[in-house]
């Protein structure tokens, strides 16, 4: 528990840093980019002892189980796909949102706490050879849903 709080604090500081320095409070691009570079580098380390992934779905499963466990100390609650490059990852108690009390006012602030993770997932997938767009959706705190759309070209 004690070592987990460090990550939470760091994340909160990153969010603060990114949004305080920019004029626009809704500018999440920097935050997402920090996540992207982090994920891109981190996945290299996390997949060190993992066998090669057979396909896209296997990669997604790795993200939802091992990757999520290593970062958020829990697995995602649900992974769904339409088999056409659209994946929906649901986390019913997303780590960065669990410390926020539920409410309409707090819900407005939710996007800045999920932007980093969107980038993190996008970066990890990108280094594994999957070009994707990741968006997040928060309907009620602390549940969060990530939509991963694979860009095939």
């Amino acid at each position, binding site marked *: 528990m004690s070592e987990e709080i460090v990550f939470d604090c760091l994340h909160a500081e990153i969010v603060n840093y990114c949004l305080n320095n920019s004029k626009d409070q809704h500018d999440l691009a920097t935050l997402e980019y920090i996540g992207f570079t982090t994920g891109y580098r981190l*996945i*290299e*380390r996390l997949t060190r002892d993992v066998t*090669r992934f057979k396909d896209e779905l296997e990669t997604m499963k790795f993200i939802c189980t091992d990757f999520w466990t290593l970062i958020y100390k829990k697995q995602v609650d649900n992974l769904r796909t339409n088999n056409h490059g659209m994946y929906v990852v649901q986390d019913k108690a997303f780590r960065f949102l669990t410390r926020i009390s539920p409410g309409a006012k707090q819900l407005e602030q939710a996007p800045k706490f999920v932007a980093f993770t969107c980038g993190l997932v996008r970066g990890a997938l990108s280094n594994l050879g999957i070009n994707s767009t990741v968006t997040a959706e928060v309907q009620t705190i602390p549940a969060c849903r990530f939509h991963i759309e694979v860009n095939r070209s």
Partner: protein
Amino acid sequence: MAFCIAVIGKDNAPLYLATSDLERELDLQYHVHAALDVVEEKCLVGKGAPESKELYLGLLFSTENHKIYGFVTNSRVKFIVVIDSSNIALRENEVRAIFRNLHMLYTDAVCNPFYIPGEQLSSKKFDRAVQKLMSGNA
């Protein structure tokens, strides 16, 4: 004693190359380049052979004077090691250990926030460690 360690990026661009014998560097580079085709062949998707799921690819090919080993990470970065055929001290297990160490060094280098992914690896720390790895085995 020739010994060469190369790191090749996702798009087959060389990221790093170290040889123990500067005079034969070009010759060794040719071997590394030739090995890339074999690596590609071994990594073809759809092959269900269990050994193809491992990151370590084993002996890619051998010529009269050299043996070439390969390794591909999950992010499609390739490591190639060229050693002398006469070098009998390096067996399968030792080569495996070299790759494991190399992978560890590479991940450390990539996690450096000042390194831009896809650029040449110019980290001194990485270079020193690889040189040490070479001198320890050659």
